[in-house]
């Protein structure tokens, strides 16, 4: 039997804190199960590997219909955080802190540490060329270990036979 290893590739296109985690959690699970992992960061997803941004990812309560008052410890069932409250200065920082505290309690590592774990476990990380050009970024702007800046075509070549998950 040809023993071709299972491969999974993630496309990370979001820079919000909550959208950073899916690829990290699933990628880590994949590596733990012996599956090859490639992650391609594009558009806002580049924030996840941007040295200046990775520790400052946030989650905003504005227009987030799933974020309820209960998250703040106020037991009000389905009552949402009013958008008009969400626009107050400091609300995004507040919601971000709440989420980070909750993750910390579950011993979920911060994004930077998680990415390092993934790379140490063999994940390959790439930045999208078009987005990099658009945002005026360079390889030096990224955390150590990001392998290269590649085109969408390169990504297609390197993920032949992979299951691809877009986030």
């Amino acid at each position, binding site marked *: 039997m040809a023993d071709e*290893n299972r491969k999974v590739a993630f496309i990370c296109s979001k820079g919000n804190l909550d959208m950073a985690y899916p690829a990290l*959690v699933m990628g*880590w*699970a994949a*590596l*733990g*199960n*012996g*599956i090859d992992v490639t992650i391609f960061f594009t558009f806002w997803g580049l924030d996840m590997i941007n040295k200046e941004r990775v520790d400052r990812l946030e989650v905003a309560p504005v227009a987030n219909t799933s974020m309820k008052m209960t998250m703040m410890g106020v037991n009000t069932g389905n009552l949402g955080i009013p958008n008009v409250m969400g626009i107050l200065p400091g609300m995004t920082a507040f919601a971000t802190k709440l989420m980070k505290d909750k993750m910390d309690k*579950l*011993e*979920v*590592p911060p994004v930077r540490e998680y990415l*390092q*774990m993934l790379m*140490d*476990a*063999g994940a390959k990380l790439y930045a999208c060329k078009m987005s990099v050009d658009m945002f005026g970024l360079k390889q030096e702007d990224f955390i150590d270990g990001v392998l290269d800046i590649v085109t969408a075509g390169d990504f297609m070549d390197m993920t032949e036979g992979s299951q691809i998950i877009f986030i």
Partner: protein
Amino acid sequence: MATRTIAGKEIQINNEGFMTIPSEWDQEIAVELAKEEGLTELSAQHWKIIDYCRQSAAMSGAAPTLRNITNGAGVSTKDLFALFPKGPAKKVAKISGLGKPEGCV
């Protein structure tokens, strides 16, 4: 649930081959289970990790996650993945005579 004989002892296993009664485990069984997972020899580093998993499970009742192992046993992620290639998550737990790790990290 089924039984099997390994290293001359009868053990209980589940349908994925994980031991279900941690107290049935011993080092000889671990050596045989490791061979089945493709590890022909268990080094001191392997044992350090296995011992940590046994201790951790004895305390918590569940197999530790990979991050618990790296933090608790003092091994780097790189070394853990090198010692148990092709996916340490299930491999370490199986060789240690424990169930599948229950956490995501």
